[in-house]
């Protein structure tokens, strides 16, 4: 039994807290009928994930999670929904009797596979310190090992921008 008032005890408490935040965020996201609440749940889930990354000694990834997912993705989704304004509708479509067990089974299968993968893989040892300049390491690998992936992702983003410009342009007349 680890005492609560040691470094390990506090860290464990912190870990449990973040896990609770992540899971409750996810539950809110899938269970709420109102879309804005679902997105708030999603944002909460992302904050929890960022906390997990911080707990795993990768503050850079944690900050990026906040910046990109909470600050950009969630805001974009809220904005899109706000423009569409779906209102407070009840659940659309009916659920069949087997959908719940099937989705539960798929989820369990995925969890099982992930767990086996996580336990059996030889993970490289994480850097011990927070201020070890992990930003530098990430920059190096982005511009050397993963430069091809990096470029491809930017092409995808470029396509998205051009596509949205085309869509926005289509509805505009020349007045």
């Amino acid at each position: 039994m680890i005492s609560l008032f040691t470094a390990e005890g506090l860290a464990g408490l912190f870990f449990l807290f973040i896990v609770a935040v992540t899971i409750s965020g996810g539950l809110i996201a899938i269970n709420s009928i109102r879309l804005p609440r679902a997105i708030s749940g999603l944002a909460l889930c992302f904050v929890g994930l960022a906390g997990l990354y911080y707990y795993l000694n990768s503050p850079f990834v944690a900050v990026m999670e906040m910046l990109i997912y909470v600050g950009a993705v969630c805001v974009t989704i809220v904005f899109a929904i706000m423009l569409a304004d779906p209102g407070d509708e009840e659940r659309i479509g009916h659920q069949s009797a087997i959908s719940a067990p099937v989705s539960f089974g798929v989820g369990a299968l995925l969890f099982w596979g992930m767990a086996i993968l996580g336990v059996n893989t030889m993970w490289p040892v994480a850097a011990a310190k927070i201020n070890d300049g992990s930003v530098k390491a990430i920059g190096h690998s982005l511009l050397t090992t993963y430069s091809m992936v990096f470029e491809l992702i930017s092409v995808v983003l470029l396509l998205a921008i051009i596509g949205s410009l085309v869509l926005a342009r289509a509805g505009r007349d020349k007045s």
Partner: protein
Amino acid sequence: MMFIPEPLRLLAFVVGIIAFIALNAAYLVWLERKVAGHIQRRIGPKEVGPFGLLQPLADGLKLMSKQLLVPKGVDPYLFKVAPLLVLVPAVMSFVTIPFSENLVARNIDIGLLVIFAFASVNVMGLLLGGWGSANKYAVISAARCVSQNVAYEIPMLITVITMIMVTHTMNLNEIVMQQDGSLLNWYIFRLSASPLMPVAFLIFFTCSLAETNRAPFDLGEAESELIAGYHTEYSGMGFGVFFMGEYANIIIGCSLATILFLGGWQCPLGLYPGWWWFLAKVYLLIFCVMWIRWTYPRTTLWGLLNLSWKYLIPISLVNLLLTGAMIKLWPLLKTFLMGAS
């Protein structure tokens, strides 16, 4: 030096930061009213206490004793959470801001990124507040705030990237350390890094005005057409928390401008650096923010978006390229000049 356990030290810092934000929000409102008064040839608040100095106290008491109304038809949870989503990220951002060499809650390598990460949550708060209110003025205001924030985040981040290229670090304390010595070492005057450095400062300052929805970019709360914008439906302290969040964000914007360009806690003459210099510079910038608010009329939405997309973004991109070129060329030029003399 006395040893204090890390969690306790952080707790003390967070309590201090919250006190700092609350005190500043209260007295910046007083200052804003005084500045506005004098600019318009009035006196401003003068009844409560000497020079109206107790006015914030009276305002606070009034706000706290008012009922928190939750209008019919709003989403009650989102409506209550939204003001917190504006204030809490602001408190979190303060954690990495160095007030002086040792007066910083958490001196981490990616301090600059942390501030931008938490600042981006602020928009979420405005959006949910505006939308959760179920009020058409609030929704319009929220939509305006987001388009404005997205438009101005781009030149701001490009300028910040330029600064990171020059400083080689995102650690705010180290950035300040690099500017020690005298006034000429501040990054705003570091023309050897990029001849456009003062312009970069102006771009950064303009963008932080727009990001915090301050005049002349306060389209989100244009009183003449949108009542009060996203906080139209909020009463009492709900409104008060939104206000505190806004002032906290102004302080953060001015602190960042001070740290990146004006040498943070360094003295202009290189003597006695410390938190007093930092605060002096920050309050000077905040005074400029107020000065601008009461001098310029509100822009139109077109003017606002045009300024960002047609002027600020191209100029900041040019600055980025120029800085990259200077990083490569300046050492060569220097050796050439040394060899000639």
